[in-house]
């Protein structure tokens, strides 16, 4: 069975989603993965956008979190500040299973940079900034989507846009954040990383055709490979739904 790296990522993201729970998704692969989940094992998953658009069922892939395509069969189109309140209250109550994040750099503790490369005051490369990422990282468990490159997986990021586990256990509480929430997984085109009790990233799954060694070679810090297993390839019927129903125009996969 043939499938692309992006398709394997989408399937992996989809597998993180449980039926009946609520997720904060952005555009791109997280939305594709979540939509795939809703079309397969998790029809009652609730998708929330940082624009305060709730539970839409986009029929075409949206280009932004404000795209009118997200409104389709949504439950509410709230003003922006309602998302602020919902996020903090419902995350605290454990009713938001997780939010999806991306970034340009990540460290072993899941601290993320989506602001700039180099000195913040004289950046070599400037990005858009936090968007909703910092808020998600403040209140929710997170799943992070990254390109797996050595320059992106580094010991210390240039700027912490979204706080992860700090430098280890106890750090979230120390800075004033809920210690029970934080990064849970990192999905790349090579595999799936999780975080141990020491708050450090370890390799949980390597994708078919990828070796743990290859993943270590693409990671700028030492990764515990001892717990890694090979990921299941996409099931044929899941791949079929992904390709023919979720993103038939191949905008994202």
């Amino acid at each position, binding site marked *: 069975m043939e499938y692309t790296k992006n398709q394997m990522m989408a399937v992996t993201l989809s597998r993180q989603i449980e039926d009946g729970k609520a997720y904060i998704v952005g555009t791109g692969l997280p939305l594709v993965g979540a939509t795939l989940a809703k079309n397969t094992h998790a029809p009652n998953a609730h998708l929330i956008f940082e624009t305060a658009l709730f539970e839409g069922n986009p029929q075409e892939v949206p280009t*932004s979190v*404000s795209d*009118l395509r997200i409104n389709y069969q949504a439950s509410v189109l709230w*003003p*922006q500040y309602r998302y*602020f309140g919902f996020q903090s209250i419902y995350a605290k109550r454990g009713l938001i299973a997780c939010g999806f994040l991306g970034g340009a750099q990540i460290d072993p503790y899941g601290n993320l940079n989506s602001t700039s490369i180099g000195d913040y005051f004289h950046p070599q490369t*400037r990005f858009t900034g936090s*968007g909703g990422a910092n808020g998600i990282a*403040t209140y929710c468990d997170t799943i992070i989507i990254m390109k797996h490159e050595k320059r992106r997986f580094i010991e210390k990021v240039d700027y912490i846009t979204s706080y992860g586990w*700090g430098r280890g256990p106890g750090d979230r509480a120390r800075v004033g954040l809920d210690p029970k929430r934080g990064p849970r997984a990192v999905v790349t085109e090579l595999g799936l990383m999780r975080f141990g009790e020491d708050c450090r990233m370890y390799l949980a799954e390597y994708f078919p055709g990828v070796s743990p060694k290859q993943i270590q070679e693409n990671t700028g810090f030492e990764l515990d490979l001892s717990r890694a297993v090979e990921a299941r390839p996409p099931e044929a019927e899941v791949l079929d739904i992904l390709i023919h129903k979720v993103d038939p125009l191949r905008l994202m996969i």
Partner: protein
Amino acid sequence: MNTDTKVMSAEAAVSSLISDGDCLAIGGFVTNRRPYALVREIIRQKKRNLYIEGGPSGGDIDMLIGAGCVSTIIVSYIANSGYTQVCRRFREAVEQGAIQYDDYSLDVQTIVYHGAALGLSYVPVKNMLGSDLVNLWGISEADRKKHPKLPDKKFVIQEDPFNPGSQLCLVPTPKIDVALIHAQLASPDGTFRISGAQFQDLDIAIAANKTIVSCEELVSDEELRRQPELNSCTGLCVDAVVPASYGAHPSQCFNYYDYDSRFFIDYDNASRTQEAFDRFIAEYVDACPTHADYLNKLGAARLLKLRIQPGYGYTPGLKRK
């Protein structure tokens, strides 16, 4: 019924209500319902030293930066998502040190605009704690004190008096001089009705000292007052009503039109260099002295193709790449 009218041209609204150095907040979200017609008029009138409260910024703010109108931006996001992932005139201005900037998170910008509309001095939040949004001040306290409009402090961290041991980040609410909004309907007394997602528009309209509303359709006061439950804002918060069909083009407008992908692709290319950007502005802004000229330049057929399809709320099958 009020017998005054606040209806005026974009030219009159921008020249009478916006001054150099003002703090501006702009409605909509990234590529949705951004008041581009008003923004083009600001560029035309060569306003300078604007301080932009960014929120979910789109290419409109990138145009203001590229056109040299902006000296300070408080930012959390600026993109034409799906087309330009980081707006290019913004990016170059930051990388070259040509602009003063500081970063918040989008949630925090959202809630301080809301707090400003609630008349609060600050909003106490958990957001940003631990991150470099707190550790690094893009604009130092010294520079803030020199700035005529910025609060002296980016935030203050304080213990929560009701939850001992819990830290809070107290973020001051901005003092917005002018809000720019694009609504679907407005009437002469200033009442306006936004359909679909409101984003942060009502907050900035209430909080701002002056508010300019462009609208798809100008209707009578009586028409809007038939269903006050659908209206977004009283005219008491509005200073100018500017009729402008397709006034949010190239962004989307709920119930009216989808985004213009071709325009976003063209802008993505044009904004790569200052020279190409300047030619783009010369062509689409300076060579079109009025909004009507701009629409004619785009052409009726192109605009009509963007009309949304009822039942979908967007234009299904629109060419988007």
